[in-house]
C-alpha cells in the first residue's frame, strides 16, 4: 500500500478512536486502559514476521523476544480485563 492510503486509514481511525473513547463510561476507564494495552500488542504481527524470516539470526531472536513480550500483554491484558468486567454487577432488585 502506498503511504497516502495508509495515512488515510490512520487519520480516519484517529477520528473513530476519538468518538468511541468519549463514549466509554468513566466507570470503565481502568478496563479501557487494560484492553487498549492488550490490543496495542497487535505489534506481535511484526514480531511474528521477524521471527519467521530467514537471513538474520539476530533479527529472528529479537522477533522471538518481541513475540514473548507481546503475548504476555495479549493474554494478560485480555484476561485481566475479563476479570475486572466480570466484577461489575447491577443492583439485585
Amino acid at each position, binding site marked *: 500500500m502506498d503511504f497516502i492510503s495508509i495515512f488515510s486509514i490512520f487519520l480516519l481511525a484517529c477520528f473513530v*478512536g476519538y468518538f468511541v473513547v468519549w463514549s466509554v463510561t468513566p466507570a470503565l476507564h481502568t478496563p479501557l486502559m487494560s484492553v487498549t494495552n492488550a490490543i496495542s500488542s497487535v505489534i*506481535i504481527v511484526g514480531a511474528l514476521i521477524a521471527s*519467521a524470516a*530467514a537471513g538474520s539470526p539476530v533479527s*529472528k531472536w529479537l522477533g522471538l523476544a518481541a513475540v514473548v513480550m507481546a503475548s504476555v500483554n495479549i493474554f494478560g491484558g485480555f*484476561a485481566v480485563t475479563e476479570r475486572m468486567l466480570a466484577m461489575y454487577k*447491577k443492583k439485585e432488585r
Partner: protein
Amino acid sequence: MHEVAPINPWVALAYLASGILFIMALRGLSSPASSRRGNRFGILGMTIAVVTTLLTHVPRTADGALDAISIAEVLGAIGIGAVIGIVMARRIAMTAMPQLVAAFHSLVGLAAVAVAAAAYLNPSAFHIADAAGQIFAVSRIEMGLGIAIGAITFSGSVIAFLKLNGNMSGSPIMLPGRHVINLATLAGILGLIGYFLTDQSPWVFWTITALSFVIGFLLIIPIGGADMPVVVSMLNSYSGWAAAAMGFTLGNTAMIITGALVGSSGAILSYIMCRAMNRSFLSVIAGGFGADASAAAGGSKEQRPWKPGSADDAAFLMSQAENVIIVPGYGMAVAQAQHALREMADQLKKEGVNVKYAIHPVAGRMPGHMNVLLAEANVPYDEVFELEDINGEFAQADVAFVIGANDVTNPAAKTDKTSPIYGMPVLDVEKAKTVLFVKRSMGGVGYAGVDNDVFYMDQTMMLLGDAKKMADDIVKALSGGGH
C-alpha cells in the same frame, strides 16, 4: 528476492476485520452490560490477526521445506508469553492494577523496539528495502519514530511502575536544568531521525534508540505520585503511537487502526485527568507538583480546633440518616478497605438508609481505579456516581462519609485563588449536614500539600485511624447495637 510481495486481498481483509473488531471492543465499554461482549470481540480480532500472520509467514528452510524448529520456536514463544500473562492477570490484586498496566505498557514499548530493530537488521523480510539493501526513505522515518516512541514508552513505564509499586519514592526527582536537558535530548532524537534519511548506518539507529531510552527516563522522574493517572494514560497513548508507527512500516491496517485507537484513547484519558485536576498537560509533564508538600506541612501552622469522633458515633449518625454519600479515595485502596466499606453500606441499607458512592475522576492512581475496587467489593455499579452526576446531591445528604480522599473534597479549590488546587473541580462534601472524615492522622496533608477547611468545620467529625479498621469497627457497632 526483494520484489514487493503481491498482497493477497483476503489477507488484507483479515487485518481490516481485526481492526474493526478492536473498534467494537472499545465500543462495548460504553456500558458495563455490553463490556464483556466487547472484550470477546477484542480477543477475536487479536486471534484473526495472529493466525493470519502465522499462516502467511510460515518459516521455511532454504530449500522451501517447512522449518519445523522455527515453527516450534514461534509457537513456544507465544506459549511462554501466554502462561506468564495469564498467571499475572489471575494473581494481581485489584489495588495493584496501576502497576500492572504500567508494566504491560513497558512490554509493548520494548516489543516495539525489538520489532523495529529486527526490521532494521533484516529489512528485506519486511519488504522495506530495495535490491541493494537500502531501506526506503519513508520506512526510515517510520522506523525511527517507531523505535523512539517504543523506547520512551518502555523506560517511562518502567519508572512509572517503580513509583507506583513503591520501589521508588513517589516524590518528584528534580534534576537541575532538566528542561534544557530534555529539550536538547528531544531535539537530538528528531535531528538524528532526519539524518537517518541520508545515512542508514548502525550508529545513527542505535543512538536514536539509546537517547530515546534516556529521555523516557528523564521525562517521568520529575513527575509526582498524584500526577500518575496522567502519566499512566500518557504512556498508554504512547504505546498506541508506537504500534501505529510500526504499522506504517509494515503497511498493516490492523496495527494502524489499533495504534490510532489506543493513541487517541490514552490522549483523551490524559486530557480528562488533567481537566479533573485543572492542570494543563504541559504543567504535568514539566513535573514537580507536590515536591514541597512535606515542607508546607512541617511549617508553623496555626492549630485549629477539630472534632474527633469514634466508630460508634459514626455508626449512630449514619444509622439515623436518610441519605449517605460515600466518597472513597486512594487511601481506601491503600488500606484495602473496599470490602469493609461495602459491608458497612450493606448494614446501613438494612436499616433503610439510602447509600450512594461519589467518585472523583482523579481519585486513585489511574482513571477509573475506584470504580474497579468498588466493583471488586460487589458494590453494584448503579450505586456509584461520577462527580458531575452527584455533586448536586450533597446538599440533600445527611452524611458525607469521606474515606481516604482529601484534596478532591477541599473547598479551597472553589474559593481560595492562592491555593495550588484552585479551579480543580471538587466534591461538595461540605454541603452535607454532617461530614465524617476518615483519615490516618491530622498531621498528613493531601498530595497538593494544602490544608483542608472541611476538617475544622462545625459539622465535621474526624475519624482518625486506618480506613479498613475504622470501617470494620463501624460495621461492628452497626450490627451490635442497632439504633
